[in-house]
């Protein structure tokens, strides 16, 4: 993709080199990290003219050491020593600049480049430019796009066909292809605003929240398990996802969306929902491996929270400043730990977070559940052993190294039971019911660690454990949610080289110094941080957010590097448009639906996605949007589309994670023995991809084959790769085979007694929202006949199509299933045109 920018950069031979535009970016990107403000290897700074003159002679590029070293002319002394070499074009630019006298304007003083970096400037409100073509633009967005195209002398592309448009906007707004009925309605709607009406309808669909939640889950590194070796299941993680879907469907303004997720618990009289929102930060990985240091991994979680906020809201690679000052951006290491300090006092808790309808059955069943539980515990004599065990645990904590077995057991207690030491220190009478139960459950499960095998067998705790689990299984427990709570203040320090064992200077929670100041009158807390992030003065949050929306709708952001708005990121392709959109987003109260509506109703969005050979050769990444882009669907939407057209999809919104069938042996690769995959048997197995249980060490194969992120760090954009494993996945995975069967059954049901040609047409309409061309229809009918003949000769049709459809021959149904499967594998089916 780099090439695209370079090609655009090729200058007419006559144009003079401009230091700020042509040269400084090279020096900043490739030299300043070692020869700049922070580090001066060989005592050389290439951000000051005075210093730079030591390695260059104005007018004489051939004699300049700088050019000799970056061009490889100096044997064994090639600069930069790490990373890719400068391109020939970059070297040429340096050469010409030196030959033209190495003009270095005074304004480009050392350090100015950083503070002056474009993304850190206040958001401007540029007026949409005038364009020569006065007809094309449908709204302001288009005037920016068109003006840029006109600068190249290029025309925009014509509008896509209506069938393409409805499929495109349905996939983009709800993640599901339109039903043939919806397509017919749209095609028949001749009102001038038929498309806008369609958009409004789709934005009101509850599937909108599902479609757009996925992007947010990627950013939040959402998963249903801890990660690391043990990779325990997180049974309550989904509750935060449920909140996200609801918030998006309600079009919660992005400032509130931000504040509640960063500090919902600190809002005055916080509601359960506002506390659930903080579950965003509970998506950090948790290491429960025996022997790891708990404080080390707590610190790593806090670091991860700080770095994630830096990426998600500020679009900067804050994580780089964990060990040292950022090499390219003005983020000092201190800035990172000041951000860290906001999150350092936060603790973790799981709270009751009932969904509608849960409370009644819970309260009704509670007394009997408690009675039965107590009876079981009494029957097996738990009260006789647990107090002594707890006492020994405390002793082990006081005298580490004295009794190895107890050290080990204490380690297990603190690993498996959240907040274990706090519960241990609370006298039993003062513990909450939840704490009491959790401690007893851990005791029953782990007592064997400290007693002999024979004694353990006598106690029959294995049996007790099983009975307790069964009892719990029948009890209608409340849904819970993982949240943050503010604990006692903790001192924060800069950690030398990011090492938790090496605290340096103490730091307070303070917002990064290179941006606008935080509120002077409020005590620093996560809440003040959250409000600062969405303050209108913040130049980054709105830009970063609108850029991600744009990326979702065009396949690339206006800033292509949507994860990095710093000096190493790419510059915006349309800087004025980015600012105009950011300002508009602020003006419309951070409402995302309004922003999306504005973009998808633009002429730019509605362009055809067909390639344009001549223009694409000069703009291979389609940065200037001379057409829409064909985008392979994300992993989840490929599944959703197949299940939807075959009418297998169970379209319930929100709720728990589900486990669709998984081939035998996949889970064998998991280390944690507790990782079971209890396949959902009912319609739950046909839920949308975003609800699939995500086990970090053994993620669902179809998701990974199609580039879902691994939920380790915030993922700002997905790859769209193209591999043979994807082909095998779509051809042979039982989910897609079942979809093909369902699709064939639907086809035959909806076209009783019709011939192959008209069935081919209907199949296209069901899957691609359009009619086939003449040739395409022929391909399908030929293929149908071919498959039918093969199934005639073979007795296996019953295995391939196990259903019985009255009036339809089995071989016929099997042949259509084979054709349906081919359609589900089409590039066009898994692509948003």
């Amino acid at each position: 993709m780099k090439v695209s920018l370079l090609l655009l950069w090729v200058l007419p031979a006559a144009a003079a080199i401009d230091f700020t535009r042509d040269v400084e970016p090279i020096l900043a990107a490739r030299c300043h990290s070692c020869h700049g403000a922070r580090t001066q290897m060989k005592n050389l700074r290439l951000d000051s003219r005075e210093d730079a003159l030591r390695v260059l002679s104005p007018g004489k590029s051939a004699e300049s050491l700088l050019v000799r070293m970056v061009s490889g002319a100096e044997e064994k002394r090639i600069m930069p020593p790490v990373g890719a070499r400068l391109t020939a074009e970059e070297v040429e630019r340096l050469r010409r600049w030196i030959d033209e006298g190495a003009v270095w304007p005074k304004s480009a003083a050392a350090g100015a480049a950083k503070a002056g970096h474009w993304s850190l400037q206040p958001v401007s409100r540029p007026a949409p430019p005038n364009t020569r073509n006065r007809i094309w633009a449908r709204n302001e967005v288009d005037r920016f796009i068109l003006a840029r195209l006109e600068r190249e002398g290029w025309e925009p592309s014509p509008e896509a066909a209506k069938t393409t448009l409805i499929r495109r906007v349905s996939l983009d707004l709800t993640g599901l292809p339109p039903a043939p009925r919806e397509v017919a309605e749209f095609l028949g709607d001749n009102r001038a605003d038929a498309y806008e009406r369609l958009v409004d309808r789709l934005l009101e669909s509850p599937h909108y929240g599902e479609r757009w939640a996925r992007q947010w889950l990627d950013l939040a590194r959402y998963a249903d398990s801890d990660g690391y070796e043990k990779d325990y299941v997180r049974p309550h993680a989904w509750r935060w996802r449920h909140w996200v879907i609801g918030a998006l469907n309600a079009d919660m303004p992005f400032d509130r969306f931000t504040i509640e997720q960063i500090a919902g618990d600190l809002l005055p009289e916080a509601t359960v929902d506002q506390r659930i929102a903080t579950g965003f930060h509970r998506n950090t990985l948790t290491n429960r491996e025996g022997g790891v240091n708990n404080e080390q991994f707590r610190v790593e979680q806090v670091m991860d929270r700080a770095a994630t906020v830096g990426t998600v809201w500020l679009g900067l690679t804050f994580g780089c400043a964990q060990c040292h000052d950022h090499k390219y951006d003005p983020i000092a290491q201190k800035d990172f730990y000041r951000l860290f300090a906001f999150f350092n006092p936060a603790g973790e808790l799981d709270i009751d977070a009932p969904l509608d309808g849960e409370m009644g059955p819970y309260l009704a069943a509670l007394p009997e559940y408690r009675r039965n539980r107590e009876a079981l515990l009494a029957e097996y004599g738990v009260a006789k052993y647990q107090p002594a065990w707890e006492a020994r645990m405390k002793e082990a904590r006081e005298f580490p190294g004295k009794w190895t077995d107890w050290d080990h057991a204490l380690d297990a207690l603190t690993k498996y039971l959240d907040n274990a030491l706090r519960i241990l220190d609370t006298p039993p009478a003062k513990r909450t019911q939840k704490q009491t139960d959790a401690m007893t459950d851990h005791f029953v499960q782990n007592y064997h660690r400290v007693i002999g095998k024979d004694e353990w067998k006598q106690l029959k705790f294995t049996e007790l454990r099983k009975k307790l689990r069964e009892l719990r299984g029948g009890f209608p427990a409340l849904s819970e949610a993982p949240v943050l709570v503010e604990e006692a203040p903790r001192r924060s320090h800069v950690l030398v080289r990011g090492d938790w064992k090496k605290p340096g200077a103490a730091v307070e929670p303070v917002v990064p110094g290179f941006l606008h100041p935080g509120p002077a009158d409020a005590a620093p807390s996560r809440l003040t941080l959250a409000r600062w992030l969405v303050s209108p003065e913040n130049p980054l949050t709105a830009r970063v957010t609108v850029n991600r929306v744009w990326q979702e709708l065009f396949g690339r952001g206006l800033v292509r590097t949507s994860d990095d708005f710093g000096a190493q990121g790419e510059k915006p392709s349309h800087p004025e448009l980015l600012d105009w959109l950011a300002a508009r987003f602020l003006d419309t109260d951070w409402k995302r639906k309004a922003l999306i509506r504005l973009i998808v109703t633009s002429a730019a969005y509605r362009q055809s996605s067909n390639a344009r050979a001549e223009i694409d050769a000069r703009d291979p990444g389609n940065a200037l949007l001379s057409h829409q882009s064909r985008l392979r669907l994300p992993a989840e939407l490929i599944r959703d589309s197949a299940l939807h057209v075959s009418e297998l999809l169970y379209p319930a919104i929100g709720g728990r994670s589900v486990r669709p069938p998984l081939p035998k042996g996949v889970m064998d690769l998991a280390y944690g023995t507790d990782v079971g995959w209890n396949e959902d048997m009912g319609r739950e197995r046909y839920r949308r991809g975003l609800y699939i249980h995500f086990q970090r060490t053994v993620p669902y194969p179809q998701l990974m084959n199609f580039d879902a992120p691994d939920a380790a760090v915030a993922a700002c954009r997905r790859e769209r790769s193209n591999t043979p494993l994807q082909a095998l996945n779509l051809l042979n995975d039982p989910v897609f085979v079942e979809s093909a069967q369902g699709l064939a059954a639907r086809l035959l049901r909806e076209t009783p007694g019709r011939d192959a040609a008209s069935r081919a047409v209907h199949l296209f309409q069901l899957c691609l929202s359009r009619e086939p061309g003449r040739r395409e229809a022929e391909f399908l009918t030929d293929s149908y006949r071919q498959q039918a003949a093969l199934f005639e000769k073979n007795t296996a049709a019953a295995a391939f199509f196990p259903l019985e459809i009255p009036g339809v021959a089995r071989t016929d149904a099997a042949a259509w299933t084979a054709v349906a499967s081919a359609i589900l594998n089409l590039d066009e089916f898994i692509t948003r045109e």
Partner: protein
Amino acid sequence: MRNRRQFLQAASGFGGLALADLMAAEANPLAPKPPHFPATARSVIFLFMPGGPSQIDLLDPKPELRKWHGKPLPSPATKDLKLAFIKPNANAVASPCTFSRHGQSGAEFSDLLPNLAGQADNLCVVRSLHTDAFNHDPGELMLMTGSMQFGRPSMGAWVSYGLGSESRDLPGFVVLSSGTGPSAGSNDWSNGFLPSAYQGTPFRGSGDPILYLSNPEGFTAPMQRARLDVLRRLNEKHRRDSGDAEIDARIASYELAFRMQMAAPELLDLAKEPKAVLDRYGVGREPTHQYGLHCLLARRMVERGVRFILVSHGSWDDHNDIDKNLRKNCEITDQPAAALIADLKQRGLLDSTLVIWGGEFGRTPMTQQQRPDIGYGRDHHPNAYSMWLAGGGMRAGATVGRTDDLGLEAVEDPIHIHDLQATLLHTLGFDHTKLTYFHSGRNFRLTDVEGKVVSKLLKKGAA
């Protein structure tokens, strides 16, 4: 992306390739690519031993420990030690194994490794490895991805990214796993932030060898061909209509998938392997069958152009009952691993195949168990441990590095994991500092910001 273009440019002189060619190569991320300089290894077999095998009982004898057996080690030696479970004052345990010298090189092997000992002159034993992590998951990430942080590409992914694949009909990076899976799971073969084309493909022990390789029930090979034919016609039609070259890549992926359906069963069909070969690997006999099969498959994959094969067998995490467990693991792995080396050599493949054997860390000279009803065991030991390497430009018959008399620290030629990785990339023809990928604001590489090539590990002329 930038680097791939650079390779291409370097291969043809600056700007020698037309943009169209660059784009075509871009369309197939696994097209073979030349490395930075001539390589000594073409493929890699990593015999990964997750959990951490005990070097003290296998490759690095410490007779001095007999003096301290049953007692804490002298405190000056242990005061700075940071271990996962045990405290530095735990009792030392001398190895009950007998060591002897083998081959012309006289390399020392424990009696638990009689077959590998027979290959002494083909192996390069390293006794001075050290790593940063003393827990499994971070340790594996360190070994496999060069960083204890999640989300980095694995070694195999880096190699696939750098070299592409030689095989037209098999994945370039394959994973075979037996016993308990590794702690870090799929992170050990993840593509991280590299395109997913570079991720490892696990070959499975049961069912399809590659996930979703078999056609659905009742669907024959001619039906599959017919399905792919109509798919291809429709895709080609749409390619012409839309003008999108990405559809060509999609068509190519389906054809490769089809070839994989043919090639994988051929790979797994051992009918043409002589019985003597099967016996040598211990295939068809317990306890060696599964691991022997994996070693044999690794050789067959190398023959078919697979670039990187990760063969994992675990777990070696013997906190308890190490006497029993270590013997068991050695009985499973010793013979097949030795057969693999001999077989590669006999076929003239050892020179171009780098074989590595080792885990994420080693084990302590002290025990962690005090309970009389459980056998003694050893804790994780990141400061000094052993691996062996063979083929692919490695020095044969050498023992490199030395630990102190108690086995606590590497005192001669300490080799960090990053150095091992740098050396591995070197044998494949890469300057490890230049095999980079731009992501999230900077260039990343397997060796992070560290690592140096260890020339002592390389045979003459390969350094």
